[in-house]
């Protein structure tokens, strides 16, 4: 209903999670926070889809996980980007940019 609560397009969450992890290893909660912060709270991550997405990325070998201790001294699962994940991020970013540019161009044309 609110424009800021826009749902993520399928596959976008994967890209955003990869991007969030590019900044450094992080646990699930942190990834969610990062995405929300980076998008200035425009994007909201559905908690129910974050963890399956992380599992999917892990299956594909783009991220790896290990248990660590958080800043609040809690046991947490930290995810980090693998080298294939980094490559994947680059190529997906490029694909996304060209897609966004295309969409943008179309929208601009229409608005005139």
């Amino acid at each position, binding site marked *: 209903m609110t424009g800021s609560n826009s749902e993520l397009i399928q596959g976008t969450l994967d890209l955003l999670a990869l991007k969030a992890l590019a900044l450094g290893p992080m*646990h699930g*909660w942190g990834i969610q926070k990062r995405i929300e912060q980076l998008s200035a709270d425009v994007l909201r991550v559905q908690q129910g889809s974050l963890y399956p997405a992380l599992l999917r990325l892990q299956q594909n070998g783009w991220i790896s996980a290990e248990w660590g201790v958080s800043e*609040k001294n*809690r046991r947490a699962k930290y995810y980090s980007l693998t080298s294939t994940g980094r490559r994947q991020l680059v190529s997906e970013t490029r694909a996304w940019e060209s897609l966004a540019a295309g969409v943008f161009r179309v929208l601009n044309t229409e608005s005139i």
Partner: protein
Amino acid sequence: MLLIRRFLFRLLALAKRDRFDAELSAELRHHVECATDELIERGVRPGEARRIALRDVGGIEQVRAEYPDQLGFPTADSVVQDLTLAVRSLLKHPLSTAVIVLSLTVGIGGSTAIVALLNAVLFHPPPLYRAPQELVLLQQNPPDRPGIRSDVSGALYMALRAELSERTQGLAAVRAQSTASVRITDYPIGLATQAVSPDVFDLLGVSPSHGRNFISDEYREGAAGVVVLSHEAWREYFEGDLDGGDDDVIGRVIGIEGEPHTIVGIMPERFWFGSTGTDLWLPLKLRDGPDPTRRDLSIVVRLADGMSQGQVQAISRTVVSNHDAQLPADERGWGLQVFPLAGLRGFASQAAGGIRLLFIVVALTLLIVCVNVAVVMAARWSTRRREIAVRSAIGAGRLRIVRQFLTESMVVAAVGGVGGVLFAVIALRAILAAAPPNLSVIDFSLDFRTLGFALAATVVAGIGSGLLPALQRGDLRLFDELKQGGRNASGTPGSLRTRNALVILEVVVVVVALITTGSMVLAYQELADLNPGFETGWLLSFRIDLDEDRFSSDTDSGRVANAAQINSQLTAIRDRLVAIPGVEGVATSLLLPINDAIWLRRVTLASQESQETRIACTAVGAGFFETLGAPILEGRPLRENDREATPWVAVVNRSLAEAFFPNGDAIGQVIQFEGEGERPRRIVGISEDVVNRGLTMAVVPLVYIPMEQRPDTQVSGAGSRLRSFFLVRTTSDPAAVATLIREEVAKVDPLQAITRLGMVSGWLRQAADEILAGVYIIGPLVGFALILCALGIYGVLSAAIQQRQQEFSVRIAVGASRKEIIRLVLHQGLRLTSIGLLLGSLAALALTRFLASTVVVFRSTSWVVFSVSAALVIVVSLLAACGPAWRAVALDPVAALRKE
């Protein structure tokens, strides 16, 4: 790569499923704690904060529920869930489920029954042999024709024996089964005998259940005759009770071919080697110079420890090439092959064609089953497209859906498989109860091999029929499906085409099976009607073996049968027989015209520009054609006055006349057989074709020459040239005449043995019975195939109608009459049937042609068979279409339309 990685990941997850679950819980717990912290920082009360955090994360269970398609493989839980779902969904469509289960039951059951028969006949050495896997069979094949299997000559056996007996655990020879005249009571009876080398029983590891084995002395030339009985023969022909203690059978003397033989042993029940039904075993006496061209020995070798078939093959090859050098030029080049004993050669050579046919039919039946199930499953997929689309939309993975359908097809396959085995047991009982006695010797119980086949068939049918529709799903467009409400008229064009093609294939298969079986039944009927080209009623035949010592003389070129002396003896007997009251005609013949071996001779035909060929030849006495009742088509028969001194003549059969003298000018032509003492012969008559290689084989071109007009022939050592047959046509009960025949022959020569005295129709029946056995096996199978085909058509039409419900409703609503709807449905069914019929007929034509060239059971591809088969298929498919047609008409248009 990615796929493999995902797979491995899942495998790992599966292995550590519990840990994975625990980790996921911990991770989510961490998430909730963090969220709670944040909420508290914003000033929410701790309890409330935790509640909100938990709500936001959606609850651990819900998140976990999102995983199953990604994490590991289906666990026991979800398999049970799938099963429940499958059973429920199957019960929801009871009709199509019944069609599937019935198809599977009949198909798997029918083919399992046949496989059990084949298994028992072909792949099972009789259970009595010790370590049968060590036993191999040596067989020869004509030059450059490895597909043909022949027995081995005595000479080659001796050579092989010298090389192989040391290097293996031993080898033994068994002469091909033959019929001997055996006198147990007053009348001699024809019993099946096999002559065996000394060690054969030991080699096979079977000892007599009573009495003893042969001893080496008994193999010497001139030793007193001894015989070992089969258990079955003892049961049938002797009253004595062995277990009662009084061994009144062992030691008894019976006459075999006129010679006294002492019974020394009885083999255990169900023992046989090479061919079933052997009544007696005799010691095999190989003469000094066995005829190298007489190949009549089965050679069995027991391999030494760790020895391979290849080694035996290698040794044998050397022996054969050395042996070849001693043979006449045109007898060289025969190959020698090694076979495991399990695929018994007797069947392989005699019934190869029939068994090949059986395998074809079994394979076709199974194919029909798979097609049937696939058709119905595919139809069901189509009608459930909407369900699938919805389930995909709410997040069920593709794998999950495929798995669901596989589960469904495996469930029906399992039910069908169990039903099939039960069906097979019942079918086997029924087949065996009705089968002719020559089948009943063999043990036909279901063993692990047969059950393994049933299991494999079940699994293949289950997976195949589940995957086929799943593969079709590739073209499923989710959103289109939802938009259309899963109602596109009759599935996508692609799936419709597949299903139609499958049904056409099914019809083709059934038509082929029907026509081949029909031809076989027809062939049997021809045999049963006993139309061998002559009149068989009250026609007796018997064999006379003239004593070689008395009727041959030693000359410079070896031992030669004295034709004149033989002829006078035969004439003397004939004159006596003619005088018996009730005898209408008597004729002699060198060979039994029905199913004896053929005497192939080199011949030059004047018309063929001195081109040499080999032609079959037999010598017959005066009155032969009249006694046999074989019509002379042109010219004259052979007469009393065709003597040694008169011009030499010959009568040829129709096949020969047509093959070599296509212009119809056979009469008057001159033929010249090769050989010393031969003279040119003028063809004086053409006779109607008379069966001459057994009823199951095509008539070969044959020359009949007068008994009197043949040169002295060399005695080959086997004494075969001194054998003659008599044909006696009677006007009264042949049984009474038979007694008189014996008396009269004894008056001419008290030492003269008569063998194989019996009705000619009886000899003919034997051949017919063999085919009948085949009909009994194939017939039911084709019946099953027909039922399956009907089920297939029914299934496809039902599915099509279900899909076209709305269309029909609209048609009815806008005024289409019920008749038109019925016609529409029947037309759809018949269109498929007729395409299948056409293709099937063409295929059958090709197949029967092919089979006719190998087994001549298929002498004629009759149009009757074709049209009866076609009619049967059409009627069955119409019947199958009636149900769906009726249901289409019975639709309530309003209800059907409302379903939209």
